[in-house]
């Protein structure tokens, strides 16, 4: 459903992505792993339309989206949980969720969706009125995920959802990712926590400084010696 | 290359530039009109460099620089008029007057800086703007220094040589300051005040010190302006004048002193050149300004500095690599 064809991305003179291709199929969890600065976030930004690739293209549902504006891509059914959560700090939890549903055309009737996210994240229900900026890191991460779900995405991109979270929350977050996937949402997951990511993913790509160096079914990579040495510690 | 060699090269460059322009003036290739423009540009360089120190280097938005220039101008004028007939040589009067101008402005800078620098960003900007206005309105209302009346009878002590060396001295002082532990401390405040404090920089002290230094040189620019015009029109020191100087700084590149020099020259020449469109001069000037900012949002130089030494090194490298190709 998502296809990335040989993209090259630059930040000014910095050549961040040097020709990467991969695809994500309906119903999968695909994970991208790789060291700091390998270009994972850059890829997600390119897929979401925040950055435009210099060459190559991105296809969503067989439609080229490389030159479509980010907000239109969201309308097509893609959502992202950005790196570092980036919740709207001065808006309430409720309003953040409303923003998540911004792109939806079925006006107003989101009650079922609120129920769905509150069921997954009961803590958010208690804090509906609280300003997002005053919540703890873990709560903000939950909000960021709930917010993305509010758009009822067909495909969800997640950038390091476990970063900076307490171990107990890390487990919880990974459980929820699996739940979301089971409910029918395709997932592209970027993680530093390679072990956890590979455990829940179906396929994986390993990146190094802007290129794909390895790819394959997740369980195979989990056993790959090179991966073990470099990313699993 | 050793440090002293680099210094020597820079000094040689400056001397050659001086001799060149002096010759052009002497043989009439450049006339009195050109000389006047150069003096004005020089004054603008000093004013803008001082503002760049506060805004580009120290990182504090200061929108009331005209106020410090006013203080410098009045101090220099009052002093030079007071000693007018004492028979001191002109250079001595000039030096003392400019020192007084700078010091007075610096004192005000400290007085204003202590409360104002507790604020940040746009709030600091508006407070400095406010102080600039207060200074100007105070001048209007103080009869002893002439109120709204222009101050007259100031001797003409600034020519090309004086302004050239003044600019060189001011820029040198600022460069030396920036490239020292004190300058690094000031830069670190611009970059991240909390981190600066956490590595042991007394940020309050350096903010006030940086602001006072900036005010000091602004005072000198004001003094130079008074000596160049031989009179002071208090109405000059409005918010718009602060803005004009600010424009030079941003156009040249915040944090780049050489950028300030280039921008002052470019804008100075542009302003004269645009006389041919007469009434449309300011319209076109404003348009060009907007266009320049859109084309180069970080100013002409960004935060980089032009360096003669760097240029020479580049040229050497270039010729060498060419030879290798052969």
């Amino acid at each position, binding site marked *: 459903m998502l296809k990335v064809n040989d993209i090259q991305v630059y930040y000014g003179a910095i050549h961040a992505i040097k020709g990467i291709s991969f695809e994500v199929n309906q119903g999968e969890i695909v994970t991208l792993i790789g060291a700091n600065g390998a270009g994972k976030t850059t890829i997600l930004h390119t897929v979401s339309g925040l950055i435009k690739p210099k060459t190559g293209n991105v296809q969503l549902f067989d439609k080229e989206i490389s030159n479509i504006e980010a907000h239109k891509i969201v309308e097509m059914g893609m959502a992202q949980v950005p790196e570092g959560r980036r919740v709207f700090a001065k808006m309430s939890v409720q309003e953040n969720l409303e923003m998540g549903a911004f792109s939806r055309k079925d006006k107003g009737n989101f009650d079922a969706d609120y129920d769905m996210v509150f069921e997954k994240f009961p803590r958010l229900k208690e804090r509906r009125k609280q300003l997002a900026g005053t919540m703890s890191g873990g709560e903000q991460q939950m909000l960021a995920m709930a917010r993305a779900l509010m758009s009822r995405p067909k495909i969800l991109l997640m950038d390091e959802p476990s970063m900076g979270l307490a171990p107990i929350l890390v487990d919880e977050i990974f459980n929820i990712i699996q739940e979301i996937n089971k409910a029918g949402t395709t997932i592209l997951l970027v993680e530093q926590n390679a072990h956890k990511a590979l455990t829940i993913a179906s396929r994986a790509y390993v990146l190094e400084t802007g290129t794909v160096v390895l790819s394959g079914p997740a369980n195979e990579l989990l056993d790959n010696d090179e991966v073990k040495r470099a990313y699993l510690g | 290359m050793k440090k002293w060699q680099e210094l020597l090269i820079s000094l040689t460059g400056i001397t050659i530039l001086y001799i060149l322009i002096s010759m052009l003036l002497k043989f009439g290739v450049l006339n009195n009109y050109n000389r006047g423009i150069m003096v004005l540009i020089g004054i603008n360089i000093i004013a803008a460099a001082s503002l760049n120190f506060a805004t580009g280097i120290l990182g504090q938005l200061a929108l009331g620089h005209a106020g410090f220039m006013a203080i410098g101008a009045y101090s220099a004028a009052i002093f030079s008029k007071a000693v007018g007939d004492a028979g001191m040589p002109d250079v001595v009067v000039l030096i003392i007057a400019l020192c007084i101008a700078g010091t007075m402005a610096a004192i005000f800078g400290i007085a204003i800086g202590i409360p104002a620098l507790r*604020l*940040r960003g746009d709030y600091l900007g508006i407070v400095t703007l406010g102080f600039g206005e207060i200074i100007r309105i105070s001048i209007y*209302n103080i009869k002893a220094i002439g109120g709204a009346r222009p101050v007259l009878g100031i001797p003409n002590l600034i020519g090309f040589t004086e302004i050239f060396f003044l600019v060189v001295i001011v820029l040198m002082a600022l460069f030396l300051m920036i490239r020292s532990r004190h300058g690094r401390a000031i830069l670190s405040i611009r970059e991240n005040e909390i981190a600066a404090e956490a590595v042991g920089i007394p940020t309050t002290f350096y903010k006030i010190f940086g602001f006072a230094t900036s005010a000091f040189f602004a005072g000198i620019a004001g003094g130079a302006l008074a000596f160049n015009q031989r009179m002071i029109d208090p109405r000059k020191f409005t918010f718009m004048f602060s803005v004009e100087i600010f424009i030079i700084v941003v156009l040249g590149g915040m944090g780049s002193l050489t950028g300030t020099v280039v921008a002052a020259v470019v804008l100075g020449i542009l302003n004269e050149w645009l006389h041919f469109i007469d009434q449309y001069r300011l319209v076109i000037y*404003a348009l060009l300004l907007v266009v320049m*900012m859109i084309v180069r949002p970080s100013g002409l130089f960004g935060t980089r500095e032009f360096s003669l030494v760097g240029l020479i090194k580049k040229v050497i490298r270039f010729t060498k690599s060419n030879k290798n190709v052969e």
Partner: protein
Amino acid sequence: MKDFLQQIIYGINAGSIYALIALGYTMVYGIVKLINFAHGDILMMGAYFGLLAITVLGLPFPLAIVIAMLVCAAFGMIINKVAYKPLRNAPRISALITALGISMFLENYFVVQFGLEVRKMPEIAWLKGEVFIGGLSIPKVTFLIVGLSIACMIALQFIVRKTKVGKAMRAVSEDMQAAKLMGINVDKTISITFALGSALGGLGGVLYSVAYYQVEPYMGILPGLKAFVAAVLGGIGIIPGAMFGGFVMGIIENLTKGFISSSWSNAILFGILILVLLFKPSGIFGKNTREKV
């Protein structure tokens, strides 16, 4: 005592105009964090367009207001597109300079286009004169301006707090990229912000020129500056703050002129602003949010 109350009334009159202009300032600042120095010139344009609508097109006053607001809104959007949008990722100071450049351009362009002579806003018959209440004279315009500025404040607050586009504005102001990821059209949202802010500026311009019946190319500078100060005083970015700041400024200004000194009044005004900021560094309504370390 009567004098004092009279001065307060005049202060409210002046302050309500500052408030109206400050609303537009604060609105734009709140969303795009740009001190839009051209806002005062939008005001000037509003005054001109209002004047032209009345004198050239012969429209009635309320219609002239609408025209001025619409044209200013359009100009606001154009200025945003031409001058600010290209600088969205540039250092903030650069955008400040383009704002100043646009301001200079508009002023000087209007000078060469319309000349410097002051044009007089025709008197609006039903706004002329005063109402006397308990020996105090209240100019009729005051009712209109105060009413309109309060109405605008409430409307604006409603838009920003409650409507979808208003929430989008707030999201954009916090994090443009994250807003895009929500499917918010950032360009359109900012454009609407400028349109709204400029429409308020235009309205302010017409009312200002009705209150002081003069229209000239530089008329926006001082009210623009004072409105900006008012916005800062109230807490820039905060809509009720702008309103409050405007009224406070107007009243303080008139009291100083009336009882202390009119030639020092601007100095005193700035002095008070500075004092307030020293004790409340983000304005009267501003929350003192320290940067989280």
